[in-house]
């Protein structure tokens, strides 16, 4: 399946995962976030019923409604079994019945609302970023603990701990499922976007490892960002900028990887393989990201991507504009990583020696990409011996087979 076109359509293929997320968000509304564990059990149970029944025939035309009625019955059974206070049960019964009676259209909007509220709960500023990402993947995206652990190359126990911290925070702080409004929204929405941005980056930077899960992380981040921008994009333009940024990257997914799985760098990519549909959607979102609104790093990063998309080839890229954008990004976020990426455009505009001067002394000695880029520029400056040393060092720092393959190819150029 690696050849699959990465697009928003592909999301539809993950019916079980996404229905899991929808059901969890919607049931959590009735049960309360403090009982998220119960909700997850009910939803898992519901998905098993679907597995059994759908195996024998086709997936129903409206899987959401089908799952809904099963989940509702399971929820009511659970409450009866638990013999919880009659008054509480009544509340849940009413809510569940109201949900089942919803027309198809309002069921959809109910689910959208629940998911949006769940996004805000998962991306609560009181929860650490890594716990935010873990709980979002678990509850909103239907990833299992094993899948999250595998995507983040860590142990299941570590992910369990992150999830527990989030659930504990929900319980102890009585976090409610609601989308904040007014001033509170202003403060919360930036945490939400930052969490989705991190989630996307986690997937993106690992997307050359062997699993497909990494691309899924990106697409899930995109899906959630679309939910947020659908609701708030008109008043919070940075949500649209973030979506544009993600869509630009998603449009290049296929072109970044060769048939043998090898990394293809931007300079070598076949631009015909950049997905035109995602590209045009990206430009739409960028156009709606409000040039007059205050500029976030999403705006600038999306603009950098847009500049690449406007260029017919790597050589004909408007590198001066890209360099100017990186300078704005650095003003906003003065980090060595920004300078590292800026060095590529410096190299194109002013040549390798200037780029090397910029790289000199950056506190990124442990980062393989620092040495890889340095090696590239040394090669272009025809300083082959030093290039060899830098690329060798990069290779020893890389934890990724595909990266090492690429570096090995470059090392051949040093002879």
């Amino acid at each position, binding site marked *: 399946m690696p050849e699959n076109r990465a697009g928003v359509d592909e999301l539809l293929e993950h019916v079980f995962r996404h229905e899991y997320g929808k059901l969890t968000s919607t049931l959590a509304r009735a049960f309360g976030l403090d009982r998220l564990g119960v909700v997850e059990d009910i939803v898992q149970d519901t998905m*098993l019923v679907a597995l059994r029944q759908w195996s024998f025939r086709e997936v129903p035309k409206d899987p959401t409604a089908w799952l809904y009625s099963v989940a509702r019955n399971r929820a009511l059974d659970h409450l009866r079994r638990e013999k919880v206070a009659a008054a509480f049960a009544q509340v849940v019964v009413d809510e569940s019945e109201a949900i089942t009676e919803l027309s198809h259209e309002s069921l959809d909007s109910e689910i959208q609302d629940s998911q949006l509220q769940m996004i805000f709960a998962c991306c609560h500023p009181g929860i650490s970023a890594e716990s935010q990402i873990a709980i979002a993947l678990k509850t909103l995206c239907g990833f299992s603990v094993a899948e999250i652990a595998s995507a983040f190359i860590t142990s299941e126990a570590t992910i369990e701990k992150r999830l527990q911290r989030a659930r504990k925070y929900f319980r102890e702080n009585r976090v409610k499922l609601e989308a904040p409004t007014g001033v509170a929204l202003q403060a919360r929405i930036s945490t939400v976007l930052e969490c989705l941005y991190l989630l996307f980056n986690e997937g993106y930077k690992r997307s050359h490892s062997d699993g497909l899960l990494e691309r899924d992380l990106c697409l899930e981040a995109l899906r959630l960002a679309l939910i947020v921008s659908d609701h708030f994009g008109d008043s919070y333009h940075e949500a649209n900028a973030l979506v544009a940024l993600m869509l630009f990257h998603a449009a290049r997914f296929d072109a970044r990887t060769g048939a043998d799985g090898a990394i293809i760098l931007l300079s070598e990519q076949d631009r015909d393989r950049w997905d035109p549909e995602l590209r045009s959607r990206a430009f739409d979102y960028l156009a709606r990201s409000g040039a007059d609104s205050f500029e976030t790093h999403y705006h600038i990063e999306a603009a950098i991507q847009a500049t690449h998309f406007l260029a017919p080839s790597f050589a004909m890229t408007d590198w001066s504009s890209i360099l100017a954008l990186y300078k704005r990004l650095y003003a906003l976020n003065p980090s060595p990583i920004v300078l590292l990426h800026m060095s590529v455009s410096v190299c194109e505009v002013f040549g390798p020696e200037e780029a090397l001067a910029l790289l000199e002394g950056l506190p990124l000695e442990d980062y393989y990409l620092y040495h890889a880029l340095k090696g590239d520029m040394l090669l272009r400056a025809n300083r082959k011996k030093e290039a060899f040393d830098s690329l060798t060092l990069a290779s020893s720092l890389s934890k990724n087979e595909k990266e090492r393959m690429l570096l090995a190819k470059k090392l051949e150029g040093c002879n």
Partner: protein
Amino acid sequence: MNDFLYLFRGGAAVRAALSPELMQAHMLKWQSWMGKLSQEGKLKDGLPLQSEGKVVKKGGVVTDGPFAEGKEIVGGYLIVKANNIAEAVEISKACPIFEHEGTVEVREIASM
């Protein structure tokens, strides 16, 4: 051509721990296995069973059931056309239930 009954047992414990994504992958295997049988004209009937039921005993004693151990609970059945039991067994070997440590009982349906 005779009719054979396949009784699917077990596998529930493994399935219960699957992630939604793996559930979907497993479902697709069942669908494609049965779709192939159907295309070949070998599939006559078949349905899944709910896991809850009643057990009725002499004297009108009705209890919730089945009480069999998880691995013995029948999860569904198929009626498959085959020339003989050997062929019916052969066909069953491609069933995805074996991925989850389930079993298939193959029985010829006695024609009247």
